[in-house]
């Protein structure tokens, strides 16, 4: 019995001791990126559990409006004009759809129209401004119109895909060794530029620009087609899609949008793996890094199940590093926990780039 109690005491003391070591933070620790949902980011910044987060709009705007934190870096501060979300189609769907090109042309056209609408309505004097704010609140899951106003400010809505920006992303992802090197070798791409040019085409946007003055119904498809569309949860970046959908512009060009199974997706990694890869998403919007990564990492090259083509941009910029009040620089985040949407997201890459500029280390 004496032995037993002695051992128990030793075990308990050791465990508690180990726990204390775990809590101790040496001064030169990396910033810890921790994956969490957007709602979690807001909540935990509010409770002080995390020192900051990098997220897509509207989460930063909501956290700032609630007074939980303040912006430390806008994504433009890290990389001016970086590409973000895009519209992409599934290759399997493309190969099995007779008039896929016609459909994609019209998808690009609705994207163009929606972006132009939003960019006009963003001006507070615009007659459409109130509508836009309502759309943002509905799509972004916001209850506060000032958060909606704020969330629109730093997002640049675009329709042209950004090929040079995508190349930069690909090189960064290579630098950060996010690609499975085995799979990269199987893919057969020569370099970042080769890959970017295979991924993205401008032809649909070109068609859309040519037909921008046309009345939508005059160029409608002869027969209405149904598209299973995938998008991300509450992502203000994808507002152009939502506006086009709500305004009935897809319907006007003969496209019936239905939500693909699993929509809205928690992040781009999910949309790629559970959506495009299983052929349950025909067309969808998501961040460009998940597209880049999963086309390589989780792709089965014999059937190219993770192959998608990018037809248009959605937005540039639009992510923010939001931090607690006592944080004034990235260096203040050392040894602290920062929320992010997950590995291989745009926010992940952006944060790594910001840390690189500041000479800091980031664990993930």
């Amino acid at each position, binding site marked *: 019995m004496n032995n037993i109690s002695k051992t128990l005491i030793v075990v308990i003391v050791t465990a508690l001791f180990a726990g204390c070591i775990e809590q101790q933070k040496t001064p030169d620790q990396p910033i810890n990126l*921790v994956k969490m949902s957007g709602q979690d980011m807001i909540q935990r910044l509010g409770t002080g*559990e995390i020192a900051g987060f990098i997220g897509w709009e509207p989460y930063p705007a909501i956290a700032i409006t609630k007074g939980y934190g303040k912006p430390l870096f806008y994504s433009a501060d890290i990389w001016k004009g970086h590409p973000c979300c895009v519209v992409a189609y599934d290759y399997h769907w493309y190969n099995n759809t007779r008039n896929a090109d016609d459909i994609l042309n019209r998808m690009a056209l609705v994207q163009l129209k929606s972006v132009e609408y939003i960019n006009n309505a963003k001006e507070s004097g615009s007659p459409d401004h109130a509508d836009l704010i309502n759309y943002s609140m509905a799509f972004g899951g916001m209850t506060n119109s000032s958060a909606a106003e704020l969330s629109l400010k730093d997002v640049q809505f675009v329709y042209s895909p950004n090929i040079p920006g995508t190349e930069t992303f690909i090189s960064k992802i290579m630098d950060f060794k996010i690609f499975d090197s085995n799979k990269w070798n199987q893919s057969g791409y020569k370099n970042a530029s080769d890959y970017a040019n295979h991924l993205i085409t401008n032809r649909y946007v070109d068609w859309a620009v040519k037909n921008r003055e046309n009345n939508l119904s005059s160029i409608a498809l002869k027969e209405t087609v149904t598209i299973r569309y995938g998008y991300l949860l509450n992502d203000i970046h994808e507002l152009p899609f939502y506006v086009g959908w709500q305004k009935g512009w897809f319907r006007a060009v003969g496209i019936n949008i239905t939500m693909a199974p699993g929509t809205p997706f928690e992040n781009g990694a999910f949309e790629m793996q559970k959506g495009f890869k299983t052929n349950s998403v025909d067309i969808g919007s998501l961040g460009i890094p998940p597209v880049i990564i999963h086309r390589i990492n989780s792709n089965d090259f014999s059937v190219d199940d993770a192959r998608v083509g990018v037809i248009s941009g959605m937005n540039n910029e639009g992510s923010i590093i939001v931090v607690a009040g006592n944080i004034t620089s990235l260096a203040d985040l050392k040894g602290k926990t920062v929320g992010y949407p*997950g590995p291989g997201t745009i926010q992940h890459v952006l944060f790594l780039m910001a840390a690189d500029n500041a000479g800091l280390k980031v664990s993930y």
Partner: protein
Amino acid sequence: MKNNTERKGLVINILSLISFVILWHILVLLAREQIFNIPFMKMKDLPTPLETWYALVGSMFTHTYGPGFTYGIFDHIKASLVRVVQGGVLAFIIGVPVGIGIGYSRLIHNILNPIIEIVRNMPPMAWIPLAIFILVTGGSIFIVFIGVVFPIILNTIYGVRSTDARIIDAARTLGASEAQIVAKVLIPSAFPSIIAGLRIGFGVGWMAIVAAEMVIQSPVGLGYFIWNMGDLGRYAEMVAGMIVIGVVGYIMNISILLVQKRFVKWVD
């Protein structure tokens, strides 16, 4: 004779493991060559055993790429184990006295039993949302605690209740007070049961920690690792992480068994 059957058993164990690995390899290859696929599975996305091995070796230690820093498997094991041990020790410190109280006193039993009966039927995973939204910190440790504490309480109660009434009588005639009965008779008599509860509890706690780490995210931990690798589409690393989870859980179980063998010498 006994040695011989033991050796035979070991050989069969090893052969069975090897056959499983070979079967796994063949199934993946068949799927990749589009000859045969298990329905409803994307078998060809599964890494082969060899790819898994390389992934395991590759992610064993920390890596630094540019500003990025990834933890190695050992860091993940350590982080998960520390959480399980912390939650487990807390559960032990609270569970054993509670179990003894309930086993010993009808009154304490009547007070605590209804609460325990309901709460213990909430699986640890059911506490994850609460841990996220209500707890400020230590969510995963809390989940482990929930997983470990009930097996310990129930086994302690069982241990105390199954103490031979005549042993208690013997202690009484030998002059033991009620406090001494608890300390010198009920606790040692229940000890093997308590350790068994600890073993079951740590098993549950290990499963719970991995589930909790997948939701209550932290920078390190095996649950976090496999989820991260899945997010990146790095299935070989993901499967390697799963195997590590299984092996560590197995080793933990065996260690507690050894501790039990070492310290409970009085059970045949």
